[in-house]
């Protein structure tokens, strides 16, 4: 067992898979000699060399396409896109190319690759701190994975690299420095599985990435201050979505809260609430409540802090709803 940061966990997972499979390659801007803009790939260039760990120019379309062409013909590329917002300059690949090729070719073409994005709030402002998980979730053919802890980064990134479909792997840039225990040896998790991090009987709180530690802290305060016992579920994967774990929890608690960093409209929680309305309406003892970032561009620095769902906001919303 070792204590690793979330960023070191990224490098550990990639190294684990590169050692196992010579077809795994890593490419992106500043990913090789510089070890990544977020220092999440430090040491991989030294360990695996310039053939397998390659710096690219600032040409997002070129290296997204290159990764796809390599994936279609036998390699397993891992791409570092840096800021998740940059997905918008190569969105063709996310929306039209990676996810549609298998379908359009009736299964002839396979695109086994992983696109790593540094997602979410970190006080850089409206073009460097968006939470784009909802952009990705709406596209059939993609898988969308969103880890919240170092151990999940290792296991889910390894599983994503082994997965035969295109996986969008959303790392949270405000979690890179967070430490956690990671067992020694090979770790491979399972995509499409949510995890109950804190059992509880009064309400189900769903969260992703940076919102997970906040939901857990809120749950502890709600218990201590108000005796409200919340179950906290780390959703971990939006595509595929582990609705079974969510609905099963709701059947026990009767109350649902989603904590979403994405702007409000069409956030992942909206889809979850829609599924609940369809399939678990009579399990609800009150309205499902979505706690989200407002539907505005994110301002930078301290102003950002006022808009992203906070522990206080989660606590107040849950308490107000359950004691109304």
């Amino acid at each position, binding site marked *: 067992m070792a204590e690793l940061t979330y960023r070191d966990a990224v490098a550990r997972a990639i190294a684990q898979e590169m050692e196992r499979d010579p077809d795994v390659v890593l490419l992106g801007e500043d990913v090789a000699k510089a070890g990544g803009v977020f220092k999440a790939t430090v040491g991989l260039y030294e360990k695996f060399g310039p053939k397998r760990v390659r710096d690219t120019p600032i040409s997002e379309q070129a290296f997204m396409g290159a990764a796809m*062409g390599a994936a279609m013909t036998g390699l397993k590329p891992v791409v570092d896109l840096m800021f998740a917002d940059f997905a918008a300059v190569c969105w063709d690949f996310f929306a*039209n190319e990676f996810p549609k090729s298998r379908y359009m070719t009736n299964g002839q073409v396979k695109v086994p690759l992983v696109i790593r994005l540094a997602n979410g709030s970190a006080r850089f402002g409206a073009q460097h701190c968006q939470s784009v998980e909802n952009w990705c979730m709406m596209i059939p053919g993609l898988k969308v994975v969103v880890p919240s802890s170092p151990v999940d980064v290792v296991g889910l990134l390894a599983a994503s690299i082994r997965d035969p479909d295109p996986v969008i792997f959303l790392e949270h840039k405000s979690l890179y420095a967070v430490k956690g225990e990671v067992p020694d040896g090979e770790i491979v998790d399972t995509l499409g599985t949510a995890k109950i991090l804190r059992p509880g009987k009064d309400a189900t709180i769903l969260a992703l990435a940076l919102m997970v530690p906040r939901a857990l802290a809120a749950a502890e305060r709600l218990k201590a201050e108000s005796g409200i016992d919340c179950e906290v579920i780390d959703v971990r994967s939006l595509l595929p979505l582990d609705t079974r774990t969510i609905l099963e929890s709701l059947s026990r608690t009767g109350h649902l809260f989603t904590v979403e960093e994405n702007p409000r409209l069409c956030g992942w929680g909206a889809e979850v609430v829609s599924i609940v309305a369809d399939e678990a309406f009579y399990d609800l003892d009150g309205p499902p409540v979505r706690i989200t970032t407002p539907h505005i561009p994110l301002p930078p620095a301290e102003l950002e802090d006022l808009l992203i769902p906070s522990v206080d906001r989660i606590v107040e919303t849950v308490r107000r709803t359950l004691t109304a």
Partner: protein
Amino acid sequence: MSKKTAAIDIAEATRLEMYRSQYRLREAEQRAFDLFLQNLVKGTSHLSLGQEAIAAGFATAMQPGDLTFCTYRGHAHTLARGVSVEKVLGELMSRDNGLMRGKGGSMHLTSVEHGVMGSYAIIGAHLCIACGAAWRAQYQGKSDVTTCFFGDGTTNIGAFHEALNFAVIWKLPVVFVCENNLYMEYTPIKDVTAVAQPAADRASAYGLERILIDGNDADVVYQTAQKAYARARAGEGPSLIECLTYRHSGHSRADPAKYRPKGELEKWKESDPVKTYRARLLAQGIKASVLDEIERVVKAEVDAAEVACKASPLPPDEIMFTDVYADGGCAWRN
């Protein structure tokens, strides 16, 4: 522009193959148009009528294992790699016998077993994807070469420039082929481009040789392709080739091409690649009966394909829900 013609140094069997290929592309696409007029092609289609020498010349110069990437105007390139006319027409007609059982349609013809890695309908993307296929060959020490065909309009999108720079800096075994048919869609390419030759005049920006050829001369195309492939296989990196040509039909099936100046089509039909190549072979001493026999066999394939496609049912509904994911299905939740 290289005006070399009558390349008698190309083996007779190769020349006959290029004639067969061009004639086959012409017949297959004319049949596709006929089927459209019969209201049997309900989706879109983009024909390469008049541009056959490029597809035939490159495909003939390729080796087994070489890869083709093309655009939504991809019938000719797909057929030229040996895919059957029936599979292509079936796909256009959304039939169960189609190349992708109707799930891709005219704009996405793909046959991995023939090295046709896809037809791409978003301008520019596939130049980048072709780089990746070439990178894989380089990475694995394989000798296959990737060819990426695109239209003149593609030269004004960012992905074109990103891909060229990328292919050069990584020295990738990829050949970029611009089919300059003078119109990006409805607008003349010269009206919207900073240079006269949209691909060739950009080559120097990437340290590449300026290559501009007669795209209606299969011999010239073939010999240019051979040189580019030899360079790629020798590890000397990519090539960018601009082929001058002209499409005899509109941009898509919906386009009657009324924007053309009077007489332009007629002028270009004088250098119709299929007719001029036939005349050249005859002048080189090939017997008319040999060419007639080639034409008879091709026509028989196209006729049989039409019959088979008309007899084929639409695919079963279930097929629309397959192969979204690698497990074969479309499930996004448990």
